[in-house]
Structure formats: structure tokens, C-alpha cells
């Protein structure tokens, strides 16, 4: 059992390394890096929605908050290590407070969606209105709709002049993505993750078992916020500017579409959905014939109609129907049918 899991870990790491080295051969790393960041962002919602049953319409709030926290603290502090940590910590704390309000207040799913959406829009509106010189945090001006440019970007920890950008930012982002994926994987296999799934399945039963669902959902929500914040900070480093657009409605809706298309309740689905649709958006951005939003909407509609479980579960189904478990599945079905006709 142990050997088996170590073997799996080694194989997955090898695959990840090969993918990491092969991708730049076909594509520019400047295009690839944001796709990885979207993957990280998709994973953050995939975790809380797919495994915790918390549909958050405001994942972009934590993403944008991470980016802004990074930019503001990088201007004030300089060296990027501490700003990076802050950009994870502050969205996590903010998510914990917001989550505690919602989950301890026993809000239903619909209200949860409304509140998270409204919080995102408040950020969007507020950041847009901070153009005046009075909106200053330390030495960082918030800059309104123009955003904040010109902050210290990612550097080798401890060496403020050794910038990580271009190809090396791609590799760093890839390693972070794999690392976070591995951590999320571990979390989901731990009792905490299994209990989170129990809460997703049936809140009443989980609390009848004796689990405090409010505290657990709040914790999971904060973890999702932390990952989204990290994605935001990396995005700020890639774009080298943060703007209120990070909080926009389009941004927050896209994250949900990534999860649906990739496959909710799978670990890889939201990452692949995010990267895939992100790339598609990039390609569509190079032509003027089709509008981006129309294509995104069309893809969402088609998936909901024909592949409601998303890409990864559909691939798994096809795989198990065609090769994987053909022999084992068929007799089971026949047995069930026989049992039905007898009964």
C-alpha cells in the first residue's frame, strides 16, 4: 500500500516534470504562465465547491485581493517574500471572516451566492473609485481604474535584485501549482477532507454525526481564499500591474465556468478547465470575428446540456466503457437486471 502510493507519487511527479519541460516547446512561456495561474485559481474554487459544496460566486474577490495585497505591500516593503506571504494570508483571513458570517448565520446556498457576488462587486466598485490622491496605503496609491503599476516583482527570496520573470516565473508557477495540487490532494485524503465531502453530501447527517459543519466550512472556505490569493499574487507578478478588472463580474463568472467545464468534484478538472478555456480565450483574442463572451457562453451551454459532469468525468466514463472495466461491469448490470425482473 505504502510502496504503491510512493510509486504513484514518483510517476505523477515525473509526468508533471515532463509536461513542465514540454509545454514551453510549443508555446511562449508568457502565454503559459497565466494559464497555470488560472489553473491555480480554478483549483481554489474546485476545492470548496466540488468537495465542500460551497458555491462561491466571488472567488475573484480573493484573487483580486491577493493581487492588490501583493502590489501594495511590495511597494511598501520591497523584497517580495513577505508580500507573497501576506497575499496568501490576508485573503485567507478575509475569507474566514466572510465565511464565518455566512456559515454561522446559517445562510442558504442562494444567499451565499448573492453575498459572495456582491462582495466581489463592492471590491470592483471601490477599487474603481480610488483614483484620487487621498487613497494611499503607505506609499502605494490605489490608482482607481488605472490600477497599481510599478511594484517590486517576484525575486529570489532574500535577494531583492534577483528578479524571477519570463521563463523562470513560468517554472516557479508550475512548481507552485504542482505543490498546491499535492497539498490539496493530501487534504482531501485526510480526515478533514473526507469530512468536508460528508458535509457536501448531507449537512444534516454530518452534524448528526457530531461534526461542527459551520467551523469546518469556514476553514475550507479560508483555504480556498488562500489559494485564490496566491493565484492573484502570481498574476500580479506576471502582469506587473493590478487593476480593478481582477474583481470584475466576467472574471468571477469565468472561474465557475472553468469548474463546470473541467469537471466539478474532480481534482484535475478545474485546473484543466481553467487552462484550456484560458488558452481558448487567448486564441480568440487574436481575431475580431467572434466575440469572446459569446463563445464562452456557448461552451458553457453545450457542456451543461451534453456533458453536465464536465470533461474529466466524461473522459473517465468513456475510458471505463471502452477498455477499463468492460468485463467487470457488464455482468454486474445483467445481475441487477435479473434481480429486477425477479422482484
Amino acid at each position: 500500500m505504502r510502496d504503491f502510493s510512493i510509486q504513484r507519487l514518483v510517476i505523477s511527479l515525473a509526468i508533471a516534470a515532463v509536461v513542465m519541460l514540454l509545454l514551453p516547446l510549443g508555446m511562449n512561456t508568457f502565454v503559459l504562465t497565466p494559464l497555470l495561474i488560472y489553473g491555480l485559481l480554478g483549483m481554489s474554487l474546485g476545492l470548496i465547491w466540488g468537495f465542500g459544496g460551497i458555491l462561491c460566486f466571488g472567488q475573484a474577490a480573493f484573487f483580486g485581493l491577493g493581487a492588490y495585497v501583493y502590489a501594495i505591500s511590495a511597494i511598501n516593503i520591497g523584497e517580495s517574500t513577505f508580500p507573497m506571504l501576506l497575499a496568501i494570508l490576508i485573503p485567507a483571513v478575509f475569507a474566514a471572516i466572510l465565511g464565518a458570517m455566512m456559515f454561522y448565520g446559517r445562510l442558504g446556498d442562494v444567499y451565499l451566492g448573492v453575498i459572495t457576488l456582491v462582495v466581489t462587486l463592492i471590491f470592483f466598485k471601490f477599487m474603481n473609485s480610488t483614483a484620487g490622491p487621498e487613497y494611499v496605503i503607505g506609499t502605494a496609491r490605489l490608482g482607481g481604474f488605472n490600477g497599481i503599476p510599478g511594484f517590486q516583482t517576484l525575486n529570489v527570496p532574500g535577494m531583492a535584485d534577483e528578479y524571477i520573470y519570463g521563463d523562470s516565473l513560468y517554472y516557479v508557477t508550475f512548481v507552485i501549482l504542482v505543490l498546491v495540487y499535492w497539498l490539496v490532494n493530501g487534504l482531501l485524503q485526510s480526515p478533514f477532507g473526507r469530512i468536508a465531502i460528508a458535509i457536501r453530501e448531507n449537512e444534516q447527517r454530518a452534524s448528526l454525526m457530531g461534526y461542527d459543519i459551520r467551523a469546518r466550512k469556514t476553514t475550507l472556505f479560508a483555504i480556498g481564499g488562500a489559494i485564490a490569493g496566491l493565484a492573484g499574487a502570481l498574476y500580479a507578478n506576471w502582469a506587473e500591474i493590478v487593476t480593478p478588472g481582477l474583481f470584475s463580474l466576467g472574471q468571477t463568472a469565468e472561474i465557475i465556468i472553468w469548474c463546470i467545464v473541467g469537471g466539478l468534484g474532480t481534482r484535475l478538472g478545474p485546473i484543466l478547465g481553467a487552462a484550456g478555456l484560458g488558452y481558448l480565450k487567448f486564441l480568440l483574442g487574436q481575431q475580431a470575428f467572434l466575440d469572446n463572451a459569446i463563445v464562452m457562453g456557448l461552451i458553457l451551454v453545450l457542456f451543461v446540456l451534453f456533458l453536465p459532469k464536465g470533461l474529466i468525468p466524461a473522459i473517465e466514463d468513456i475510458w471505463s466503457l471502452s477498455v477499463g472495466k468492460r468485463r467487470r461491469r457488464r455482468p454486474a448490470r445483467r445481475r441487477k437486471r435479473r434481480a429486477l425482473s425477479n422482484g
Partner: protein
Amino acid sequence: MAETVLETMGLTMRFGGVTACDAVNFKLKARELRCLIGPNGAGKSTFFKCLTGLLRPTSGHVLMQGEETTDWQTHEIASLGVGIKTQVPSVLDGVSVRENIWLAARRFFPTKEANDKAADIIDRLSLNDIAKSEVGRLAHGERQRVELGIVAAGDPWLVLLDEPAAGMTSEDVERMIGIIHEMARRAAVIIVEHDMQFIRSVATTVTVFHQGAILMEDHVEKVMADETVRNVYLGKKA
């Protein structure tokens, strides 16, 4: 041995103008097996929900092992070691039978012991054939059994079962009775039930609810023979 483990004093629950539970005083001793019966709308299920924290009583007190639990959250009550089965089977549909029982055991035991505990419960309730199946795909009787497994997994000292025999085949019911008797060796058990056949085969003492209050409390045979109870069940004026 016979200390009181569960007590309610003047437990009252009103929904608007309707008093579903009216100043109920109830006592249960350790390892006692008790059935609650009564016609529809008698207040059994409301009483049950007040005990488990699913409803907040309007007034009155609930004491468990001498501790006041009146306004506690459901999970706090369950954490005391109270196993609860709701009227409609409440199970985790999307995961396996083993995972359901493991999760229930994990609340009270560390991971490794929870593994053993889950295996033990699966054996005891003969769930081995379906242990790896997704609960959502199981038949009603099997789901009921899984839920009993969830209840038993935490080694509760108090077990509350709301209509455990509802919609089950006679074979399933017999098996269920065996399980309940086994639970009753370690825990006090309260069963809310309609099925008289079932009650006859499990119960010693029966509490009859009528119009939100306790009508009588006696041995099952005496209750069954009682004129008033018969009238209440048939809808005549008592």
C-alpha cells in the same frame, strides 16, 4: 445502575398557534428500551426533534446525563455520544457504505481505531457485500441498515431512532430488531414508531403521545389492551 440518562421537564414546542408538545415530562434510565407511539400529529416527532437539537423548544428543559442540553446545536448533542436516526434516511449518498460508517466512527475515534470500528460494524450489520457500494444506489432497506450502522459506529450511550422500520420488508424488519436489541445492551434506546407489530417485538415500556402530551406510560401489553389508547388510535373521543 438505573440512573436517569435523559430527562425532559416541561418541554413545550409551539408552532404559531399549534402546541405540538405540551409540557412533556419524560425520563429514561440507562440501557432502557423505550418506544414512543401515538397517532399522527401527536407530537412524537416534534419531541424527538427537540431532543436532538433539530428544533429549539419554546420552553422547558432537556437534560442528558444530568447536563442541560436544551439549546445546544445538533452536533454538540451528537458529540456527547448520542446516536440519532432521522425519519427519512439521512445518509451520505455519494460515498461508499464503508466511508459512511468510517466518518461516523472518526468523530469519536482516531483514524486507525475508526478503521477497525467501521470494519466491526460492517461485520455486525452484515453489510460486507455492499460495503464498497455507493449508498445512493442501494435499496431502501439497505439504506436504513447503513444509517443504523452510522448510529452504532460512535458507540453511543443513547440511541434515538425515528421510525426505523418504515417502508421495510418483514425480513429487513426482523434483522433490524436484532440490531436494536444488540444496541440496547450498551445504550438506552428510544424508538418512535407506528408499526405495532414492530413495537410488540422490541419494546418493554411504551410511552403513548396524544395531542402533544403523554397519555400513558406502561408495559407494552398493558398499553395495547388499554381502552383509551385504542380509542385514540381509532380516532374516537378519549
